[in-house]
């Protein structure tokens, strides 16, 4: 049965990695556009305008840091899942809360402007 476990895990790894590489390829060839990843859309008099968002930027940086930390822990000891420090979890939670707060604020501002038109 150990050969089945090994085969199953390697097959799964190939499939997941294949999917991830496919998405990465779509980034590279421009099919998936991340141009406004760190921009927030706010409604103004002319419709919707996208502008730089610090909320998104900090959420992106914190998520990236958490990902790198996690990958490093798994690379160091691939026999079990890593323990994620509570401080890191709290940081990610707070960061995402700030991002969502900014998104909600932009949405409410847009709605208020639309109603005042």
């Amino acid at each position, binding site marked *: 049965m150990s050969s089945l476990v090994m085969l199953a895990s390697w097959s799964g*790894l190939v499939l997941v990695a294949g999917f991830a590489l496919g998405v990465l390829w779509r980034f590279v060839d421009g099919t998936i556009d991340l141009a406004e990843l760190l921009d927030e859309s706010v409604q103004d008099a002319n419709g919707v*305008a996208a502008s730089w968002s610090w909320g998104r930027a900090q959420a992106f940086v914190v998520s990236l840091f958490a990902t790198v930390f996690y990958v490093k822990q798994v690379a160091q000891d691939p026999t079990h899942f*890593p323990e994620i420090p509570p401080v890191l979890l709290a940081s990610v939670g707070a960061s995402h809360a700030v991002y969502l707060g900014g998104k909600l604020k932009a949405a409410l501002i847009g709605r208020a402007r639309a109603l005042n038109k």
Partner: protein
Amino acid sequence: MKTLGVLISAGVTVAIIAVVAFFVPGDAMTKLKVATGYGALSIALFSGVLVLVSFAMGRIDIASLFTELGGGASLSRFQLFIFTIVVAMSLLIIVSVSQKLPEVPTGVLTLLGISATTYGVSKGIQAGTSLTKAPSQPEAAPEPPKG
């Protein structure tokens, strides 16, 4: 192509089960366990390969995978994708190294939960507002009425 893929998958699965039934030593229960395991793996693997091939050929369009409702890239979708892929790959690596299903710590589940919740709430905020993109070119003047 889809039908051919399904037929190949079914054929290989049946062949695997037949090989196990005739050549794997052991009692009937052992043969049944091994055959079921390899048969299920064969079906799952071929299904996954079919999806990847469709993906590579452009039959499955993922251009808007990270697109928000009003346009532009969605950070919540992007971070959910990254966390999901990273945790999935780490699970498969851990299983291949340790040869058993690992215990998932609360921290990892919490991280995935935060990521998924962020995506859900972001989607909810977007669904509650309707955004229309600013026109990039001046709109054409309306045609005068005929007659």
